[in-house]
Structure formats: C-alpha cells, structure tokens
C-alpha cells in the first residue's frame, strides 16, 4: 500500500517536471525578449525608415508591410472561410464530398510553410503574373490561414443550439434566412476569435512571403497591391542572419514588436473566447 502511494508521488513528480521543462522556457523566452528588446523601442525605432543598411533608424516599413499583408489576406480568407464553414455546418450532408472537403482542410493545415511559398511563387507570382507583390503574398497567406478560419467558424456555428434553427424554419424562414438572421449573429464572437488568431499567424509567418512579397530593403513605403513590401518576420530573419553589425537591441526590439503583436492578438482572442463562453 505504501509502495503504491510512493510510486504515485514519484510518477506525479516526473509529470510535473516534464511540464516545468515545457513551461519555464516559454516564460523565459517572453521575459528575455521583453527585457532585452524594451530598451530599443522608441519613437524613432517604431516610426522611421531604416538607415545605414538597417543598422540605424527604425523598422516602420516592416510594420506597415506586415499590416498590409494582414489586412489583405484576412479580406480574402475571412469571407471564403466563413462561407466554407457555413456550407459544412448548415448545408453539407454526410457523404463522400463532405469527407473529401474535410480531408482537404486537414491537408491545407498540414502543408509546410515553405511549400506554400513555392505554391505562391508558382501560381501568383509567375503564372498569374502578379509578380512579387503584396497581392501575391497576401493570397498565399490567406490560403494558408483558411483552415484556421474554417475550423473555428465551424465550431462557432455548431455551438448555436439546433432548436433555434428549428424555430426559425417553422416560422417560414428559408435555410439561408435562418443562417443569416439567427445562427450567424449568435456565432459572431466565435468567428471573430478565429479571425484574430489568424491575424497572429499571418503576422508571424516568414517562409510563405520569402518568394512572394518580401523585400530586403525598400526606399519607399508600398502604395499599391502590386508593390513589394517589407515585413516584420522577414526583417528579423535578415538582420539576424544576413547583416553583421546590427546592434543587439535592434534585433531584440524587432523580435519584441513581432512577439508583442502576436501575443496581443492571442490574448484578445482568449478574452473574447471566455467572454463568449460565459454569455452562454
């Protein structure tokens, strides 16, 4: 009997240790980037153009570029993803086509980010002749985040009680009217959560934009969809691996801005999610 109790203590201790090995580095990373990068954050750093081969000045164009990429890619993936989820949740039957669609979504989610880059290069940059541009990069990123939007939206739609749909239909509303006026409004917070999470992902991805939009250095800010753009993750990659002599604070500062952006998105999504759950 005592042997078993001891075994349990030991076993649980090992599990705890494993968990700490996972969790402590996470906290360490966030704190480290915060501490080392905070000093670099200044008005100049955030809002001016880079100078002296990125060694001075700021990262403003990278921030703007990331901003554009996020906006355009969500403008594509949110409507398509929400409608795809509506199809799966409200219209699709349990047949081979639906299983194929689900399989396709899982596969889109599993494709390597650099393969997306190749795809974007081959389809958008070369075949459709968009060139290395914001539109090419955003569409590539948009397709990459489609699975996230579809999955979170589908869950949000499923969470709406079936009885609401029954009532709406029994009052003479069509299937689409029911979705539009009863189901969708109810699912909106959940959908928004998915959109916010997508923003976080899009902002942080490097490989898909390597060949489709990212530029090493642009003297001017992008003004149209067909322009190239700088972007935060690519910028961090470049100043870490390609350019010597960058002050350490710049590197950590860029990392901090990137991590900060992503974490703010994640926290916003979490808050939205828990408020939404409480309401129900």
């Amino acid at each position, binding site marked *: 009997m005592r042997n078993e109790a001891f075994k349990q203590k030991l076993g649980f201790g090992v599990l705890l240790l494993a968990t700490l090995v996972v969790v402590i580095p996470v906290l360490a990373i966030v704190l480290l980037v915060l501490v080392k990068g905070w000093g670099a954050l200044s008005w100049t750093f955030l809002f001016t153009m880079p100078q002296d081969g990125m060694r001075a000045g700021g990262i403003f164009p990278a921030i703007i570029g990331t901003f554009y990429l996020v906006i355009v890619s969500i403008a594509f993936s949110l409507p398509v993803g929400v409608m795809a989820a509506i199809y799966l949740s409200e219209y699709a039957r349990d047949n081979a086509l639906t299983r194929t669609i689900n399989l*396709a979504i899982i*596969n889109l989610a*599993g494709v390597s980010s650099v*393969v997306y880059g190749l795809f974007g290069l081959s389809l958008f940059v070369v075949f459709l002749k968009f060139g290395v541009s914001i539109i090419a990069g955003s569409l590539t990123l948009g397709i990459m985040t489609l699975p996230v939007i579809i999955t979170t939206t589908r869950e949000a739609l499923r969470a709406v009680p079936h009885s609401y749909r029954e009532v709406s239909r029994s009052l003479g509303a069509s299937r689409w009217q029911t979705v539009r006026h009863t189901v969708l409004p109810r699912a909106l917070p959940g959908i928004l959560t998915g959109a916010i999470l997508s923003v976080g992902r899009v902002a942080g991805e490097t490989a898909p934009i390597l060949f489709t939009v990212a530029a090493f250095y642009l003297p001017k800010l992008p003004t149209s969809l067909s322009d190239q753009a700088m972007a935060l993750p690519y910028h961090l990659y470049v100043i870490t691996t390609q350019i010597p002599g960058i002050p350490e604070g710049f590197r950590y500062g860029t990392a901090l801005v990137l991590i900060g952006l992503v974490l703010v998105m994640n926290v916003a999504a979490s808050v939205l999610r828990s408020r939404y759950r409480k309401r129900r």
Partner: protein
Amino acid sequence: MRTSFRRAKEFAIEKLILLSGLASVVFVALIFVFLLREGISVLKHVSPGAFLGGRFWYPISSPAKLGILPLILGSLLVTAGAVVIAVPLGIAAAFYIAEVAPKKTRAVLKSCVEVLAAIPSVVLGFLGITLLVPFLKQFLGLPTGLTAFAGSLMLAFMALPTIISISEDAINAVPREYKEGAIALGATHWQTLVRVVIHGALPGIIAASMLGIGRVFGETMAVMMVTGNAAVIPETLFAPVRTLTATIAAEMGEAAQGTPHYHALFAIGIVLFLISFAINLTADLLLNRGRKR
C-alpha cells in the same frame, strides 16, 4: 416581385456558399498541380531514383548534381531527434495538465502552451542562433553550435503545443466511468492513469504525436537558422546539416527560373507535400477511429 428578387439573391448566395465549401479541395489540388508543373521538369535532368537517392547535392555546379538524400536524411535526423525529446515530454505534460494539475494552475499552464504555439518560428530561430547555438558550442566543445542537435531542440519545442493539446483532448475524452471503475476497485490515481487512461487515450495520443511530427517535419525558419548549411549526409547529431525545407528557403532566391536548380527545389516541395499528406491522412484516420470507439 420582391419575393422573387429575394429568391434569386438567395440562390446566388447559396451557390457562393457551395463554391466556398469546395474551395479547400480546389486549393489542395492547385497546390499539387502547381508544384508538379514546375517540379516535374527536374526529371529531364535526373531520374527519380537518382533524385531521391543521390548522395550529392551540388545544384549550381555544372552539370548539376541533384541528389536529395543528404537533405532527406538531414530532415529525418533533426525530426527524429525532436520526436525523441518532444513525444515523451509532451505526453507527460499533457497528463499532468489534464489529470494532476489543480484547476487554477491548469488554466495558467494551458495559456503557457498556447503562448508557445503562438511564438513565430523566426523568433525562435533568432533566439536559437543568438543564444542556443553559442551555448551548445561552448557546453559541448564543438567546432560550431550550428548542428542537427540545435535543430532538434528547436523543433521539439515547437512540436510540444500540438502534442500536448491533442493528447490532452484524447485524455479528457476517456469516459469518466473507466477511471471511476478502476478507483472503485482500489487503484490509485497514478495506477488508473497508467493502466486505464493511457489505454483509452492511446489512438489520440499517437495521432497527436504524428501531427506534431508532421508539423515539425515541415518547419522552415527556426530550423534553417540553427542547423548550419551543410548539405552533406549527416554522420552525427552534432554537426551541421540541411533539411529539405531549409534548402528551399535558402536557395530559391538564387535559383533562376527555368534552371534545373529551380525545378529541383520544386521537386523537393512535391516530396514535402506528399510526406505531410501521408502523415496527416494517417493521423486523421487514427483520430477518427479513436472517436468512433
């Protein structure tokens, strides 16, 4: 009159919805087709066997040597190292979070795992090359810290959130009656976990591990920044290697369109696509079998 306009609008919207539903299938097909379009031409320069099994990757020499075996082995080595570290760690952490942690800490722990999942890979790569690599060089007395081992450590870290959260789902899905039955027969919580819960959650845990592996096999930036640049067949874990993904990312900028090098990189993309397809298919089958039970 207004009703028929409304009906027409509704018809159009519902067709749009159907098209969007098919979009994912269309995109997967497009990815495969366009990879194939650029990648298949590599077979003009090298046979499939020589491509997949060739031991030398010198794409810019002439004639170009396009054997990706060193890259495949590089990916396998780094991934295997990551698996060995991440799978036991992740499963153990999942058990702790799902079964042992007090309620309040559980929320905190889950948040930490989510934060880990959210950290962009380029940031991890940056920290890896700035801190981990010099540390390994010093601590292990290596000529350079840019090694497969550094890559495995990074990838292990990145696989953990997937492994942990899906294993957690699998553990939580084990019916409470199984656990209560065991405890009623006098088993301790630990014994219940090891004898009963693991058994019930096993398909889900295996699927979680597979999905984690799939995710890191396709990882690009972090691994590229810490594994060095040596496209040679790896002999030890503590030397530089090159993965399939890093090769594409690092060399695509230099490969002119239409050259054998260009086509070869796309062919590598096809290989990656097929491998992740296979892994995801298997993991999904496992997850569905687990659920049906």
